[in-house]
């Protein structure tokens, strides 16, 4: 298992990558081994792709999953330190560097621990096994009799010892990941399962942290983009004399409909972008917002994805004693990152290096290479922490912008989007529409469930999320990224005898579609769980009891029972609207995420003002079972954040647009939840240390909207079937009730 290895420092030297000005400690302190020049492996089946140990015993973890503000940098360190039995302080983490870290998939879907962490754990277990075998030879002690403490191996009975640094320091493992390498017994865990404080928090509290927005390279210029006046408008002319007096202006860059400015200073670039006089053709290709749902219904269906089909739902519906039907919809949302997207790009010797807060650096690399017609090997993307993104926001597009501008001026360029760029041009959570029908027999049992979902098609077609720069400049684009799995959670966790759930995949959608926290799963859970509540009410059943009746899943049942205790749920048979201006109600929701992983249940308490139509969410009681928990406080932090962000989306958020462009370009026109509006949250975490770890961040978001709508029904007896639940919609629902 010994061979030459490349160091990060050598690699950086060899490719001439600038590290000056990049103050993250990982870049400065990581120096192991010596000598070789071969590229570091990033192959997913190689231990060396994930781990390196230097002579001093310092461990470097190379993670393809990145910390988007979720705390996974700390959690992944816990996993590695635990499995190797080294102190956490001895582990460095390098994330999302396409030259150094394995392509573990984009940081999405609450999979950083569930998939990324499990791969990393197996790499660590494989490494540990090899180190122990090596130590057994050196110490002449059977491997089974060895123990490891703080990276030092010795016989259980004492005696001679050897450190990891002495065993492997500076050399490659040259080992394939061994699926059978023994994992530590969770009963012996010292780090996993503990609320270890996050590494990134202290520097974020003192201004020492380097976000992408702070990142600089020598010789760097500042770029701004000038977006078309309408999404599909063509650039007709640019009057460069309009910016002639702007100090420090380096260049106006025009390529097709892509227009940008580059200047010596950030303010200079902003001034130039603002002053640049350009004329655009008119374009009115967006549907009328007031007729959005008619537009969605009229859109051509390219294909149907049938996500579940049990019995014969249509026939059972036809024969049912009672039928219930409803239509739900969900507005277009924006990510709304607090820091507008930013990226830095630099060309050297025809090769591109791009620093980006992308959730998917490996994929961004392919997109940049495609756009620039470069071989993939000539593009390197390096992750630098950004403002929270919750999915595919504008980070990638800013990288594309920076790459085009840097190529045009031959110097490194930083692109900082404005607030209007971010709100206007990041890809959006697409409009979602669902028709639901159910049949009940004479005794009130559900005999049929039939749902039809209308969402954009994924894959290849209009669903592909292109780089804005590629699209505007008329350059090639990579077809790899699209919101494909937004059909998840359409199938239901209830054992009704006849079920059919179908997603109609639409040929078009008004704005570039993307994924925002719990994409599709949130919308689908909203529709399903609100409609289940309608069925419970139609049969006079307690909504929590009703769900339990149809769940054949021990963990699900346990979860709902714990939720009932936590929320002090008192059974009821239907809404009992009280009199008075402010009515209170509670609603329940349950999900088994993607029917394959994390269980979450929630009870929301709301107040509804009958006069103003205002809904206030006062309190949530939430229980989550995400299997093995790596860092309980990290999980709670994610859960709290998911709940509050989703309250915001449910009550307040709706993108606005005219026939030409997005019109909600700031926080006044796209308001989000503020401090006086936040609910309290009580959480009961079910830890199952011997089970697989599952995603923790997205699932609690998915259950929030229907818990609120069900609580509103409990309070005032009307169903809110259209997100956001604005006062106007509530008043309209009350008025027609």
């Amino acid at each position: 298992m010994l061979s030459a290895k490349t160091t990060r420092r050598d690699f950086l030297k060899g490719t001439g990558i600038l590290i000056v000005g990049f103050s993250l400690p990982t870049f400065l302190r990581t120096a192991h081994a010596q000598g070789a020049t071969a590229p570091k492996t990033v192959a997913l089946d190689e231990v060396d792709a994930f781990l390196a140990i230097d002579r001093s015993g310092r461990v470097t973890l190379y993670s393809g999953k990145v910390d988007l503000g979720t705390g996974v940098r700390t959690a992944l360190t816990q996993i590695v330190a635990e499995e190797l039995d080294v102190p956490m302080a001895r582990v460095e983490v390098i994330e999302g560097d396409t030259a150094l870290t394995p392509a573990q998939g984009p940081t999405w879907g609450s999979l950083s621990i569930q998939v990324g962490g499990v791969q990393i754990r197996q790499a660590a277990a494989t490494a540990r096994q090899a180190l122990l075998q090596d130590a057994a030879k050196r110490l002449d002690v059977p491997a089974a009799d060895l123990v490891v403490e703080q990276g030092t191996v010795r016989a259980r009975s004492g005696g001679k010892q050897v450190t990891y640094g002495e065993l492997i320091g500076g050399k490659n493992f040259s080992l394939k990941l061994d699926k059978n390498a023994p994992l530590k017994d969770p009963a012996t865990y010292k780090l996993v399962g503990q609320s270890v404080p996050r590494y990134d928090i202290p520097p974020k509290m003192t201004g020492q942290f380097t976000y992408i927005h702070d990142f600089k390279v020598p010789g760097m210029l500042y770029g701004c983009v000038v977006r078309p006046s309408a999404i599909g408008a063509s650039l007709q002319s640019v009057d460069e004399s309009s910016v002639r007096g702007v100090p420090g202006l380096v260049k106006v860059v025009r390529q097709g409909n892509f227009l940008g400015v580059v200047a010596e200073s950030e303010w200079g670039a902003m001034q130039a972008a603002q002053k640049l006089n350009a004329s655009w053709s008119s374009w009115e290709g967006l549907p009328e917002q007031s007729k959005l749902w008619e537009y969605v219904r009229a859109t051509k269906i390219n294909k149907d994805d049938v996500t579940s089909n049990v019995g014969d739902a249509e026939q059972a519906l036809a024969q049912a004693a009672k039928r219930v039907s409803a239509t739900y919809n969900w507005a277009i949302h924006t990510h709304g990152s607090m820091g507008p997207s930013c990226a830095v790009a630099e060309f050297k010797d025809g090769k591109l290096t791009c620093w980006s807060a992308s959730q998917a650096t490996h994929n961004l690399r392919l997109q940049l290479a495609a756009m620039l017609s470069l071989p993939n090997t000539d593009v390197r993307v390096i992750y630098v922490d950004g403002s929270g993104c919750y999915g595919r926001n504008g980070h990638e597009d800013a990288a594309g912008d920076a790459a085009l501008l840097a190529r045009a001026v031959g110097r490194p360029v930083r692109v900082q989007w404005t607030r209007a760029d971010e709100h206007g041009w990041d890809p959006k959570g697409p409009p979602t529409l669902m028709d639901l029908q159910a049949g009940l027999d004479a005794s009130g049992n559900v005999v049929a469930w039939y749902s039809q979902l209308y969402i954009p098609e994924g894959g290849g077609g209009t669903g592909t999320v292109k780089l804005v720069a590629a699209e505007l400049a008329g350059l090639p684009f990579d077809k790899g990224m699209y919101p494909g799995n937004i059909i998840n959670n359409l199938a239901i966790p209830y054992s009704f005898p006849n079920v059919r759930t179908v997603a109609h995949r639409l040929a078009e959608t008004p704005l570039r579609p993307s994924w925002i926290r719990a994409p599709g799963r949130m919308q689908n859970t909203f529709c399903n769980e609100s409609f289940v509540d309608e069925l419970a009410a139609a049969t006079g059943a307690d909504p929590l009891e009703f769900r339990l009746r149809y769940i054949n899943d021990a963990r699900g049942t346990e979860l709902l029972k714990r939720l009932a205790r936590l929320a002090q749920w008192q059974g009821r048979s239907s809404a009992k609207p009280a009199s008075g201006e402010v009515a209170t109600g509670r609603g329940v929701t349950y999900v088994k995420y993607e029917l394959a992983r994390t269980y979450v249940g929630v009870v929301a308490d709301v107040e509804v003002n009958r006069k103003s139509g205002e809904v206030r969410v006062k309190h949530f009681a939430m229980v989550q079972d995400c299997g093995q928990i790596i860092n309980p406080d990290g999980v709670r932090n994610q859960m709290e954040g998911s709940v509050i962000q989703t309250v915001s989306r449910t009550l307040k958020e709706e993108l606005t647009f005219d026939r030409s462009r997005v019109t909600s370009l700031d926080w006044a026109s796209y308001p989000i939840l503020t401090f006086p509006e936040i609910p309290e949250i009580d959480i009961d975490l079910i830890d199952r240390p011997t089970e697989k770890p599952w995603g923790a961040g997205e699932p609690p978001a998915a259950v929030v909207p229907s818990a609120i709508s069900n609580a509103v029904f409990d309070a005032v007896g009307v169903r809110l079937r259209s997100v956001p639940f604005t006062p106007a919609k509530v008043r309209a629902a009350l008025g027609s009730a």
Partner: protein
Amino acid sequence: MAKTIPLHVNGKPTRVTVDDPDMPLLYALRDNLGLHGPRFGCGLGQCGTCTVHIDGQPVRSCITPLSAVGKKKIVTLEGLGSPEKLHPLQQAFITEQAAQCGYCISGMIMEAAAFLARTKNPTDAQIKQALAHNLCRCGTHLRILRAVKRASVSA
């Protein structure tokens, strides 16, 4: 024409050379002085991520022209406390693990510091009101609230 403007930042006199004296303070702090605390969020004074203190008052540096600052004393997150000597709010935010992406936090701490300086033993409702115009997208509000509450007791 470049112009040199004296500023008083984090307890020290300094100078910045700029082309436009009406450039917002934020860019002088970030680009000329290399500070990371004040952050660009909207450029419209709507979100609070750029908040700094000017003579103790919380100010949105993204819409404050450099020319309007004069001799007033500017304090950023870096000047409030340091890794070696944390301000009680910085310590409380660490203790409460009150961040996700953390992008808004500098503004939250600066706004809260000015608020706590004028309000002793605030109620939760008062804290929420004081931070009503500081936005957080990750949903860290409950932790921020707990951190400010903790600091209000320890300060």
